[in-house]
């Protein structure tokens, strides 16, 4: 019997000890990046980050904050905090963008670190070296792009005070709980220096990647477009003008244009229709015309960005329109009857909010690319492919920069080319000086409405804004109220600078005394 007991015991004891080494399935250990293929996957992910940064509420919230829209009677307080300028230091959008940008930066730093390590570890072929060079360039660009979004949002414009506080600048991947290693805020000037440096490095590394219409990946043209935009926001008009003009003049990204329509021709109507058709396709099917870059999206593999539509349409399955935000009257008034944008990007509808109904013109610029949503759903999700750089913006950058440099002729040249393309039968008459400056500003609204520029432009102009008359006071919320319809937001309002997220203030001793004023 003793034998039996001991056999039993030893068998049981041996059988029951189990290994404590467990790894999750379907993921990779972060210190196990082994090959060029692994690195490529890390690099592809940076584009997902970029797409995220240029989509959803990061784009439309700025539009709701500015002077473009009124909240409708049934907006349900969606975006209300932004529209009413009531955000506080714990604002989730600010924290969202802050986190998104820094994670993008960290992901780029990690990629750079792993590529450095890989280059030491394995012998690379020339082709692989070239491939890695491109990845380095892309990683540099992502860092610059991320910091640019932050500096626009969280800091004073460079033109106002370059020595004001900018954002935290991070060059290495080092996730740690040791809070003495965390950086404080650099100055605006240092931040721009960082952005320009990395864009310059990106330009070098990507020099051989030629631009192509609607490229899904970064090209040398995309870097130039970014350099032009950064320069404009910085007030470096010479660079802005040169870079933007080079893209426009390069001719690789022609505008869809009325210019060549011969109104006297027999088929004038057809020619006009063809332009209108092409112009609609720009968003309806994301044709990629005029786009220096258009980021990848494919519903079939569930890789689609968030909608940049801030509830401008909201049509339900019963065909009832109930948008959250309705363009102000002045927006509607800006478009002439011959302006293709007014005709294609806006529609008049009867809007219904329970017991309240009324007519208004709404922004239908983002009808939604139906191939990016469930085909069986009849209503639109308003999902578009993300277009980080459109050539039209470069026309406007060139115009504005030249005008700032006092070269009204060149400024008018770029301005009028865009207007001519957009306006049927445009008969230009040269303008200059402040009239031209005002016209260019207006043109930015007309062309770029809904694409996430307005708030930063207003901030850059430093003039404040006043919301003005509604199209139809029956169907907006708080008609006559200074909180919404007639908000008067002065240039000195502290909320022009977004709050450094409270979570950052709390976790980072270097930044705890660097909150933006007012929060």
């Amino acid at each position: 019997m003793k034998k039996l007991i001991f056999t039993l015991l030893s068998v049981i004891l041996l059988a029951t000890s189990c290994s404590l080494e467990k790894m999750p399935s379907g993921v990779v250990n972060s210190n196990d990046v082994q090959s060029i293929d692994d690195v490529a996957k890390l690099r592809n992910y940076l584009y997902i980050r970029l797409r995220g940064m240029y989509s959803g509420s990061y784009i439309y919230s700025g539009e709701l904050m500015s002077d473009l829209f009124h909240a409708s009677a049934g907006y349900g307080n969606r975006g209300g905090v932004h529209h009413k300028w009531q955000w506080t230091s714990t604002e989730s959008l600010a924290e969202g963008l802050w986190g998104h940008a820094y994670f993008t930066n960290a992901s780029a730093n990690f990629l750079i670190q792993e590529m450095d390590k890989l280059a030491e570890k394995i012998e690379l072929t020339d082709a692989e070296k070239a491939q890695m060079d491109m990845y380095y360039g892309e990683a540099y660009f992502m860092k610059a792009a991320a910091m640019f979004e932050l500096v626009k949002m969280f800091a004073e414009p460079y033109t106002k005070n370059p020595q004001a506080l900018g954002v935290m600048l991070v060059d290495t991947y080092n996730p740690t709980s040791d809070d003495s290693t965390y950086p404080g805020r650099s100055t605006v000037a240092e931040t721009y220096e960082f952005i320009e440096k990395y864009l310059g490095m990106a330009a070098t590394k990507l020099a051989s990647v030629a631009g192509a219409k609607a490229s899904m990946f970064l090209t040398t043209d995309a870097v130039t477009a970014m350099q032009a935009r950064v320069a404009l926001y910085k007030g470096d008009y010479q660079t802005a003008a040169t870079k933007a003009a080079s893209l426009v003049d390069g001719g690789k990204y022609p505008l869809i244009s009325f210019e060549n329509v011969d109104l006297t021709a027999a088929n004038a109507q057809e020619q006009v229709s063809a332009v209108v058709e092409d112009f609609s396709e720009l968003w309806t099917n994301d044709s990629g015309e005029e786009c220096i870059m258009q980021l990848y999206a494919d519903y079939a593999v569930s890789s689609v960005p968030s909608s940049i539509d801030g509830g401008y349409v909201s049509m339900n399955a019963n065909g009832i329109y109930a948008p959250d935000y309705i363009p102000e009257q002045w927006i509607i008034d800006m478009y002439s009857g011959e302006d293709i944008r007014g005709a294609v990007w806006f529609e008049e509808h009867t809007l219904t909010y329970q017991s309240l109904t009324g007519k208004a013109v709404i922004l239908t610029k983002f009808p939604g690319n139906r191939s990016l949503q469930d085909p069986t759903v009849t209503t639109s999700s308003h999902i578009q492919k993300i277009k980080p750089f459109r050539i039209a913006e470069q026309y406007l950058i060139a115009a504005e920069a030249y005008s700032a440099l006092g070269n009204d002729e060149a400024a008018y040249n770029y301005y009028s080319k865009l207007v001519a393309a957009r306006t049927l039968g445009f008969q230009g008459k040269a303008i200059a000086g402040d009239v031209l400056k005002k016209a260019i500003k207006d043109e930015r609204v007309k062309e770029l409405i809904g694409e996430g520029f307005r708030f930063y432009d207003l901030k850059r102009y430093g003039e404040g804004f006043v919301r003005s008359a509604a199209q139809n006071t029956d169907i907006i919320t708080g008609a006559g109220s200074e909180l919404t319809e007639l908000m008067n937001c002065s240039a000195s309002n502290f909320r022009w600078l977004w709050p450094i997220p409270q979570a950052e203030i709390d976790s980072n001793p270097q930044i705890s005394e660097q909150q933006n004023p007012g929060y």
Partner: protein
Amino acid sequence: MRKVKFFLTVLSLLAVSFAWAQNIAVKGTVTDQNGDPVPGVTVLLQGSTNGTSTDVDGNYGITVPSNGTLVFSLVGMKTVSVPVNNKAQINVVMEEDAVLLEDVVVLGYGSAKKISSVVGAATTVKKQVFQNRPVASAGDALQGQVAGLQVFTSSGEPSATVSMRLRGVNSINASNTPLFILDGSPVSSSVFTTLSSNDIENITVLKDASSTAIYGSRAANGVVYITTKKGASEKPTVKVSAQYGVSSVASNPAEMCNTEQYFQLREMIDPALKTNAQFQELKRFRIENDFNFDWRGWILNESAPTVSGDLSIAGRTEKMDYYVSFSAFDQKGVEPESMLTRYGVRSNINSKVTDWLKVGLNLGLTYQETSTAGYSGTGNSWYNPMNIADWSLPYAVPYDILTDNAGNFTGFGAEQDYIEDMGLYNYFYLIKWQPLTKDYVRLNGNTYQEITPIKGLVIRAAQAIEAFDYRASSKVLTDPRKLFTTSATENFTRDYTLTSTNTAEYKFTIGEKHNVVVLAGHESIINQYEAFQAKSSGMSDNRVNNVNQGTKFEQPSYSFSEKAYNSYFARLNYDFSDKYFFEATYRKDGSSLFGKNKRYADFYSVGANWNAKRESFLEDVEWLNKLNVRLSYGTTGNSGISEYLANGLIGSSSQYDGKETWGLSQVENPDLTWETVESTNIGINARLFDFVDVEVELYNKNTKDMLMEIPYSYATGFSGGWGNIGNMNNKGVDVTLGFNVISTKDMTFNVSGTFNYNKNEITKLFGGRDEFVVANTGIKYQVGKPLGEFYYTRWIGVDPATGKQLWLDKDDNVTNVFSEDDAVFTGKQRYAPVAAGLQLDFAWKNLSVSANFSGVFGKWTISNTRYFIENSNFAADQNQSAAMLNMWQKPGDITTIPAAGEAIEFDTHLLENASFVRLKNLQVSYNLPKTWMKKTGFLTGARVYAIGRNLLTFTEYTGYDPEVDSNLQLGNYPNSKQFSFGVELTF
């Protein structure tokens, strides 16, 4: 040795056959000390299997050899042996067995102990508390029963589990749930919804380190030890019971605006509406025609049925005992579609195979079908049933409104699929076309083999499996309005935990008075979880819509996780003359959950118990019937965290250009390790004047190496990472009092109460700082402050001059600008520091009444509900509380509701006192007279009873249910008030 046994058996058989020649018929009556007949006593001829048992009147009859000896036995009575000596009538008086009656308690591994010898702090709750409860979760019955144990049922969903906390909150981010042990093996908290409460023999709650350290790794939050029933009497006992009841919402929710009030409110908010023709016409029509729809009544079921039935057979023979039961339980919730149906079987069998080998199998198998109310998990969705109940506009109706040609109202037509008045789909329409079924098969199996090779040594191997297989099947059908994308989804989940425990226990005595028990053991646990989902869409026909029949197939989803533990442990018990008891335990634990540098940890405890009554100087003190003083100190661990937190990870993200992408997903932490709780416990139990039982325990617990998600600067790319930083302290007192108020033959009345006060304090945080705000949550950790004290900006009212809200800033200045930076500690806590329970048990002859009250005090919660129903910004779409009519309108108005359009903030005005007292259980039962039973010839007992749950709630909280264990409430499924009747028959 076997040969010897065989020989003996043959001999005894021979003896029996030899004795048959001189048989005699013996009869008699068995009574207790009071002269009452004792039924069910086993009467056995010594050394044989020849036996019978007494009937309801205590009578028995048996034919036995005239020189034999009769043995009378019954659990709880002293066994009596009487030589027959040719007597034809043998009457026996049996005495209660004081030793056996004293409760034994299972403490960790090894054999059970008498309560008076236990060194640690433990409380046992008996089966009477659990039986016939009209809820699926037996855990609900523990509320208020054990001093120091807080139990909350946070949802009225029939399949909801309870949350439990013992002696305060020990951890911020790791689990605060006790370790559950079922018949010796660790199980998950779902055991309470799996187990039929009628199968429970008792539940013991182990509170201090001395009793829990042997469980080491996972015992930091205490141990809840569940023992299921086993067969006890020799005569098989068959029990059948059935119950029927109804549920309704146990609440007194805020009063909402009626139609007239609602229109009035809208005009107050937006005066322009007074001249808006459309609006005025709507108002006239709805008010003139008395539209005032009862949305709460429409969406909630106020008489949801509960039906249950149980059947059990239990008994024992010389070599084995058995308990076999079958139970069925079906409950509908008050919210639509919510229900639970459960069928369970349990078979507990122990067999003494030989003198030295004992084996046993406890097997529970449960099939459960559940459905949860659609959208109920989405706090702020319009379609959450509780939001429909509150938010729906009173003038709206879910029906077509019929009018004549002149536009006069003529009545209601069909129910609308789309409620035009509110621009919402009809909830019932939505759920009708989106059916979802969920079911579980759950298995709890324990086997053991116990060998006693020599006297005093028990070697035991136990194996357990806890497993469930979960299936969820959902469809989105083609609906007449073509709202949905049709689809079919199938979910498969399997989870199992295997536990293997091997122990050796040796008991010996040195001299006469030194009793020693040594235990050593090893335990391994492995858990695996695997889930798989397949989905397809685009079916066009509701008859052909299985998951394989869609036109478009989604990528299947899959997940897998695994964890393992290896442990070694030992315990030493020593007592001197049943007067002084000492205990020491040690456990070494390893877990896959932690970083590779710190995977193993050691836990230990020491404790003593002094049975003072046994001292000669107290023996003669008559008023003192019992006195024990206990002291213990030890450490336990907490590993209640998710798998893989120590690993640095890269995961797949969305494709880009059709290619794979990899993103960083987690920071590596090779030093991640156990949280440790060091605890000290001092306890006194006494019984005084043979009337009062008193138990007082003082404890002090320090949590060390607390797992926290340390916030990182976003500059690192991450918002935080896990680390073992932070300490916390809980100290408090448990008091249990029991009074035998009346104790006569016909009438008993016992009152008992439990009380706990716990003081929680954070004593160390990360990075050397003494405070940390968790952004956007109203939570701040501060050294010296308790966890869960609300940290909010102080709202002080509405400025009568402007209608704007007023707050106090950090420096106590009044301001009308809200800022989270002005948040301060409010002195109000999310975790109640005080909990108490009161049990009243009254019996008079065959009638018994018991009532359990349970309450927590000092519990606060944020009413997120009020953010929506007291907020003029939402009034256009959502109904508002009637209190909104007090809204500020003009200078001089004194009110708490700010002017129209003012932003409502999360500040102290939403913070409400959610302390409550509930009549958790009220039971009245009547045992039908025994004389009636006798006439039936087969029944031995019949009982009818009525039981009520949550019949009364006392609270200041304005929302639906104060019991929800959360810092914030919105759209929570409230607890139900239940009333049931039942019958229980014993054969």
